[in-house]
């Protein structure tokens, strides 16, 4: 598991999250040790590399792995408040992050879908900068992978749309959401119930503070 971490800082470069510990064509797992406040959110955009290719994905799953110390503390009926706080705020606990690959960038071009090769094991994984997210989501094609993915729930889909909207200034944000809405109507034309639920979730997350 990777242990180095940098707190997210927009003025700095992308923040290091962890390293690839399992990899397939469509998804990869990132292993890391993070305190609770440093754990990235569902739907966050992340990047890794395979040679000259930058692979872009989103976080669809997070597994916080309790270790022996966590388990021993948990054996107490009521662990002291200080110890609970220590576990949450101070300890770097092992975290496994599931990432769904949405596409990749090479030679200043953006491609949607799976790259030619999955990321190599132990390749570092970083957060995406707002400019990268904006560029990658210029075309609504990234939505198809999310809609079709078994791994990502519609909650994750909504969180991804929210993350992509959040990096756009006010009027562009609205345009972006309309564009995504149209794409979803096209992709889910045969599933009106699901479409309604997805659009409601996007509206809820977009309106959330």
């Amino acid at each position, binding site marked *: 598991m990777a242990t180095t971490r940098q707190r997210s800082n927009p003025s700095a470069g992308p923040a290091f999250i962890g390293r690839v510990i399992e990899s397939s064509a469509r998804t990869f797992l990132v292993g890391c040790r993070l305190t609770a406040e440093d754990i990235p959110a569902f739907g966050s955009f992340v990047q890794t590399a395979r040679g000259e290719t930058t692979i872009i994905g989103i976080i669809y799953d997070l597994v916080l792995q309790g270790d022996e*110390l966590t388990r021993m503390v948990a054996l107490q009926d009521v*662990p002291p408040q*200080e*110890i609970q706080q*220590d576990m949450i705020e*101070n*300890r770097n606990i092992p975290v496994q992050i599931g990432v769904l690959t949405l596409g990749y960038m090479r030679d200043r071009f953006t491609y949607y879908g799976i790259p030619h090769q999955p990321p190599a094991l132990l390749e570092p994984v970083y957060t995406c900068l707002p400019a990268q997210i904006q560029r990658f989501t210029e075309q609504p094609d990234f939505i198809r992978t999310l809609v079709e993915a078994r791994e990502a729930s519609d909650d994750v889909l909504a969180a991804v749309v929210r993350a992509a909207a959040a990096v756009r200034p006010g009027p562009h944000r609205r345009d972006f959401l309309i564009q995504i809405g149209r794409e979803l109507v096209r992709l889910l034309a045969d599933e009106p119930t699901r479409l309604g639920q997805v659009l409601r979730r996007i509206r809820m997350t977009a309106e959330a503070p």
Partner: protein
Amino acid sequence: MLDWRQVRRYVQEMADYARDRLRTHPPTLRYALSLLHRFSEDLERLQRMAREALRAGWRGAIPWGEPLAARFPLPAEQPQALVIAADGSQIYPDRHGTVPYFVLNIGLIEMRPGSGAPPQTWHHLVFWYREEELFTEDGEMRALNDLEAERDIQELEQLAAAMARRAGDPFGPPVGLADGLLLPWALARGEPFAAVSAERYRELFRRAVVALESAKETGGAIAGYVDRPTGHAVLRLLALGLLDPDEISREKIADYPFGQLRDRALFAELLRPGERSALFAPNWPINDHLEREGHRLLFFYLNVGTEGRPHLARVEIPEWVAQDRARLDRLHRAIWDQCRILAEAPYPYLLTRAHELARIRSEERKQLEGMIQEALLRRGLHVSISAKARQKEWLGG
């Protein structure tokens, strides 16, 4: 790689040996326990004999003044107690590596039980790379004993400094816990066996005294916590008590009746959960020097286990902690409370966390090595590791 056929045979033999040893213990243990009670109030005679026996090379524990078989109950819960713990780990210089360096990472953690606030954690990092730091005057790389002593003394210094920062804290005087012996092992062993130069020995001693003085001034208590202690200093005292004062000699002292029995087995029979034993002073040569400085070292055993599952720790303290019952009780209670947090494996929670903070993981070692190589390359310095180290890398360690 291991030849498992050979290993299996030895493991079976070892298990038979352990079983047979265990079978022979009970009569010896009962005998030792009966002596502990028999000599319990015989303090003056034992103290006199211990002084006499020193000349014949005897090593053991001297009673401090409390009856040998005394049991001190768990003190009442403290309304507030500020507990600080420290532990250290290191990367030794590798003569097969790119460049030699020594890293010392000391993890410290402070907790205010009952406050609801998360403990505070911090690190103290030492990074030695200069010739004068890593090599002796005759050009030899510093011995591991010497670097270990540096780790131990810095742990003590950092713990005392952390306590000093909390002197006068409204939460009360601090309790400082170090992992293992309170003093560097090199000091405890005594100068002829410390494997460091006389000058270095004196330097370590001076630094230890300054740190202990600083801890004392906080009004708190400092201690070294030894889990699963292997000493038999009290048993040696009991064996000494069997001798006629006029017949103390090297030969008589060598005739030791308790075999491989340890003090912890003796006190596991005596002490109930939460109770501490009487105080004893190890008769290490260093202890006379420490006494002159006002920091004579004492120890007691403490049962941190539960009913039917005793678990003994040896707690080392300076004499000034023992002389102030409030400090001693605060320490006794704090250790017990810390051990209750991880009741399944009774060991102070904060020492577990200090160890976790101090530990340098293998990935971190690799990352540091990569960072050093990159920094050197950027300065046009071509570095290489030895052929042996390269082979180890290929073979995965």
